[in-house]
């Protein structure tokens, strides 16, 4: 549960509840982007974000996202488990 995984925002699917489809390691899942609503711009499609327990925690740039993904992939089992749990997640 301590991992933060990078993903790219595809589209905002529930404006009111601040839910967005995010592509994470090839899978699309719904996550909450409400914690990024600082100022007048929140996360928008195309943004890379770090996701922790179903919530986008911070925006990052693409290079950072790719480097973080590489690091996570090298972790092996724990990353695989986190991805499995993420895949089982149905946030609506």
């Amino acid at each position, binding site marked *: *549960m*301590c*991992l*933060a995984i990078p993903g790219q925002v595809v589209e905002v699917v529930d404006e009111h*509840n601040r839910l967005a489809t995010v592509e994470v390691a090839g899978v699309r899942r719904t*996550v*909450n982007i*409400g*914690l*990024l*609503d*600082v100022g007048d711009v929140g996360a928008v499609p195309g943004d890379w974000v*770090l996701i*922790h*327990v*179903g*919530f986008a*925690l*911070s925006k*990052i*740039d693409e290079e*950072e996202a790719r*480097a*973080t993904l*590489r*690091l996570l992939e*090298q*972790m092996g089992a*724990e990353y695989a*488990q986190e991805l499995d*749990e*993420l895949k*089982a*997640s*149905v*946030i*609506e």
Partner: protein
Amino acid sequence: MKFVDEFRDAELGRVVAGEIVAAVEPGRHYKVMEVCGGHTHSIYKYGVDDLLPSNVELVHGPGCPVCVIPMGRVDDGIALAHEPGVIFTCFGDMLRVPGSSQTLLDAKADGADVRIVYSPLDALRIAKQNPEREVVFFAIGFETTAPSTALTLRRARAESVGNFSVMCSHVTIVPPLRALLESPDLRLDGFIGPGHVATVVGARPFQFLPDQYGKPVVISGFEPLDILQSVLMVLRQLGAGRATVENQYARVVPWEGNLRALEIMAEVFALRPHFEWRGLGFISQSALRISDAYAEWDAEERFSVPGVRVADPKACQCGEVLKGVIKPWECKVFGTACTPERPIGTCMVSPEGACAAYYNYGRFAREREVA
């Protein structure tokens, strides 16, 4: 240096390792604590400490949320899970944490409806799908995770989801660090600050380390190169006789943190006067409870929670490990009675726990050979 090839920039890795050697005074022993379990994990996985001179020692801190949950709290969770009609939800890491007589996994085998969720929002969805059941979410984690619980509770209130509640066991990072610095067991020279926690709280809360204790702290990213660079930054401060908060992870961590997250946390949570930490005992103002405005969704209000207090098992030295006083392999049951498959203590359960990290990366075998 086989590890350096796995760094984002191997050449820079070599340069930094060299600069660290140049930055230390021979004859001086440096103890630098990495606060966060994620760092501990990277350090063992990549052998970061093998790249350091022998007089620079990395000490593992208390920043693993699963590790610090006391046994009594697990027992309380298990008691709730056994309540009739309850669906008890938690992160997967909590399932195998030993309570005094059972784990949540055992409770599940005994017929309790215990379900793993990836997100507190999954727990809320389960509540909405099962209106005739009571759904409890066992919330754990530092400030990294607490905002997610807070937003979930906000939504539960907005949608009047009456059969959802949270057993709040969120903890905060500053009080245990203060407790460590006040304890005579341990002399530390500086800190590698927790990157993800700082994403939420910012760098400012760590200012007390230099201001009140004269200790340098560098907020760090999680790649091996990040950690190496942060160690160098700590050593340079020490060499120059300085102590400040520096942010090595500025590409992700804003100095002021995530103001939105802090605002929501302030609304949904309140500080507990004190909270018990595994192995560290009671630490004042070190954990969060659900605020009065959200009391309706507080599992501790809704159910009678036993509030169990149990001493850690005699064989367990997690407290010493969490304080950095001993290394995992110095615990008498490490790798024998206590393994990731059959953990006695929490530090062996979570991958971020120092004992599990040592065990999984085979370092204990190496250490024992040289010992």
